[in-house]
């Protein structure tokens, strides 16, 4: 049987398209990895752990409703445990528009922070992410966490009602936008964006490099 010439041409076009498509797909994984020098990634009044005047800052832009942030959380904890005397760890809010409860969750964490329990609350939000993520109104669950941590409930409620920390959260998000982040979690070690997986070894390698400078 003779294959029509036009069919062969179409086959060729298809093959070429598949090759180009996969090429683009493979290349798109490699993005630039530096934040502009002018961006203050640490920020004023951001919540931090570790050594305050450390020269190396590990900054996370996170979203409490993001499953990827939740997945990264145990590694972040381990990193903080091992490096807390040498670096500072800063958590900044980047609630994504696709996650409707992420911003209220960040407000709740900040409201707990006002009473000195930011990290405890932060941990509860990630641990129980599935319980509150899909709720149409997660407020009651957030109050339950506040009770669990023995927070002053009136003060906690007031902070949420008045959206006391909304400006702070939005300015965090803005800093993330300026730094050109495309999703969460995004980690920076000083100005350098961490790319290619968030295992403990990746953090260790980059942090040791930055500390040796």
């Amino acid at each position, binding site marked *: 049987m003779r294959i029509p010439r*036009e069919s062969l*041409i179409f086959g060729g076009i298809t093959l070429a398209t598949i090759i180009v498509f996969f090429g683009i797909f493979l290349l798109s994984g490699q993005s630039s990895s530096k934040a502009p020098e002018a961006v203050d990634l640490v920020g004023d009044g951001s919540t931090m752990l570790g050594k305050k005047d450390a020269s190396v800052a590990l900054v996370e832009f996170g979203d409490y409703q993001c499953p990827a942030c939740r997945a990264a959380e145990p590694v972040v904890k381990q990193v903080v445990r091992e490096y807390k005397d040498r670096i500072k760890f800063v958590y900044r809010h980047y609630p*994504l528009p*696709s*996650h409707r409860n992420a911003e209220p969750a960040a407000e709740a964490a900040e409201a707990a922070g006002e009473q000195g329990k930011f990290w405890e609350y932060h941990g509860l939000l990630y641990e129980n992410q599935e319980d509150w993520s899909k709720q149409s109104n997660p407020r009651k669950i957030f109050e339950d966490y506040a009770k669990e941590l023995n927070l002053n409930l009136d003060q906690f409620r007031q902070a949420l009602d008045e959206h006391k920390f909304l400006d702070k959260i939005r300015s965090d998000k803005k800093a993330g936008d300026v730094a050109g982040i*495309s999703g969460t979690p995004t980690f920076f070690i000083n100005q350098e964006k961490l790319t290619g997986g968030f295992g403990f070894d990746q953090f260790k390698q980059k942090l040791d490099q930055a500390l040796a400078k």
Partner: protein
Amino acid sequence: MGIYLNRIIFFLTLSGLAISFYLLYTYTASSPIVCLNSGCETVRASPYAYFFGVPLPAFGALMYVGIFVLSFLRTTLSKNQSGKIAKAILSFSFVGVAISAYLTYLEAFKIHAYCLWCVSSAVVISLIFLVSLFEVRRLDANSA
């Protein structure tokens, strides 16, 4: 002329296939490496992203596979049969345009976010529709 129009349709279909397969991949990739900050994520998180549990890009992919096969088939057939298939492509793409228009309406007025890929697919299927409309009219004029 007909050869060129069918080539254009074929090429557009390949672009549509690439877009819908990419979207399907992002819908089904289970490992949460990052949560993306994009209109696409907002669209994907909306209640309209799945139809009876099937991700919408799967329907798009199916449609493009159909047009892909038809358009390829035309290269192997006689003029008369090829004309019938051109009409089939026209009807296929008409349905595609109608559905895409509805989905774009949802993006604009219900979800309030645009996914660049979804919009690109809507443009591609509209172009396929226009080119095949042109092709069918040309064939009709020739046979008359």
